[in-house]
């Protein structure tokens, strides 16, 4: 299996974290860990706390319980779900790549090539298409030479071929740099193919394992229905069980 090489060496991990937002328990006792070089995907319906989990790992939302553990000096690259730049703020792609750490023109050009988007350095960020913006965000994240890349629904707003191309790009980057990838998605098929490990989330971790293991897990089927594609399954979801009965799948039933 790809991604097994770094097992045991956790770069970033959540240990039983809970998050309460606006009086609602968004995350309840979630644990996960990302090891060097593996691609981990978090799947879950709308409102399942996927983005909140990433934000908790990044330290943006406060935890009500549990903790986030990072290896010392962890270099983290983050690709947000979207970047809404105020129209009053003029900024070129080249300038954006130098935030917050200034990079040389050569470094910026190399990052853009790696992200598959040469020759946009002089363009205004606001003039980019959705797919181009995602690639620029990826290029910027790669410039910090990250050990972990965190992506929040990176293909939102892309068409299917754009989506597939973006996930191929993520895999290429992982192969070339050995970076670990943690991403969030709700589009099942494309993601399943590109992941070493999948975590199903619905406020808590429902099930976890290789794409094959997870796709046949009853919790996964309850979460997404059988063979249905994303959008439909999201509204059919009635699954809300407790894991207090001890069948906890976190992290030991794959490989």
């Amino acid at each position, binding site marked *: 299996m790809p991604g097994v090489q770094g097992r045991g060496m956790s770069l970033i991990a959540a240990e039983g974290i809970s998050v309460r937002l606006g009086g609602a328990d968004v995350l309840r006792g979630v644990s996960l860990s990302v090891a060097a070089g593996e691609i981990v995907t978090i799947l879950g319906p709308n409102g399942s706390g996927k983005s909140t989990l990433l934000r908790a790992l*990044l330290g*943006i939302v406060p935890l009500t319980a549990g903790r986030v553990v990072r290896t010392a000096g962890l270099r983290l690259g983050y690709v947000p779900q979207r*970047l809404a730049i105020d129209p009053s703020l003029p900024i070129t792609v080249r*300038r*954006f790549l130098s*935030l*917050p750490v200034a990079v040389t023109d050569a470094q910026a050009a190399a990052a853009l090539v790696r992200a598959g988007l040469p020759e946009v350095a002089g363009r205004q960020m606001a003039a980019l298409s959705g797919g181009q913006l995602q690639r620029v965000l990826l290029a910027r994240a790669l410039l910090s030479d990250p050990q972990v890349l965190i992506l929040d629904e990176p293909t939102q707003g892309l068409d299917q071929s754009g989506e597939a191309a973006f996930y191929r790009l993520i895999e290429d980057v992982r192969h070339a740099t050995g970076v670990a990838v943690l991403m969030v998605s709700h589009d099942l098929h494309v993601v399943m193919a590109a992941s070493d490990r999948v975590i199903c989330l619905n406020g808590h971790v429902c099930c976890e394992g290789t794409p094959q293991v997870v796709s046949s897990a009853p919790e996964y089927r309850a979460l997404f229905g059988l063979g249905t594609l994303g959008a439909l399954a999201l509204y059919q979801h009635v699954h809300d069980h407790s894991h207090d009965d001890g069948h906890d799948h976190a992290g030991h039933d794959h490989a």
Partner: protein
Amino acid sequence: MCMTIRMTTGTIMRGMTMLDDFLVRAGLAGVGLSLATGPLGSFVVWRRMAYFGDATAHAAILGVALALATDLPVGFGTLVVALAMAATVAGLAARGWAMDTTLGVLAHSALALGLVAVSFVPGARTDLSAWLFGDILAVSRADLGFIWGGAVLVVGLLVWRWQGLLTATLSEELAYASGIKPDRERLILTLALAVVVAVALKVVGALLIAALLIIPAAAARGLARTPEAMAAGATAIGALACLAGLALSLWQDTPAGPSIIVAAAAVFAATASLGRLIRN
């Protein structure tokens, strides 16, 4: 300024004598203030803090009243009250209050409270318009030192934190992921805003400070391709507006503060149409 660089006694003497001229002092006050309002105003525009600026600036009148009543320097009084107001607004924003309404309530209440308070201070009532619209032609040497000192402080703060401020302005999430604390950057801007309000009071007055922050930055937007170019452009346009406004005031005997804002608005109209021409 460049006159004092060549260290001959003659030029220094001439420079000092020039400062005796009220027009030179007024011009230097405007240019000095523009150094700070250009970059800070750009952030005010990017982060949609216009009302925030208004609330802080309007609170300055209350600061004037308190300073006059307690015999403290006016600059100190406005700085303290502007800081308190900016901190209050920033605190409420952090707690997620409905900012539009909250800022509206605070801005206008602060202004009204200040005007009522000033009416109790003997003598202050007569120069009310100076506090509201500025009195740039009456800038003293000490005022000039205060203005330039404050402006240099603000520019220093912004340059020091520039990359972090810009990252946090683009996206708080990106900032967090890069180890930048958006709260700290917001505090820097809050501080800078309070200093600029205290410094600008003499130049354009409490009612027009926000205008001097926003209009030059908005005017520079259409011509700029990077944040730095916009900030520099806003400074240049602000300085130009100050000098043009002074000239207008001198020739047509118009009030100086409002004339400066009118000049800035004229530049905005020009660059807005120019920008549209370039884009089409």
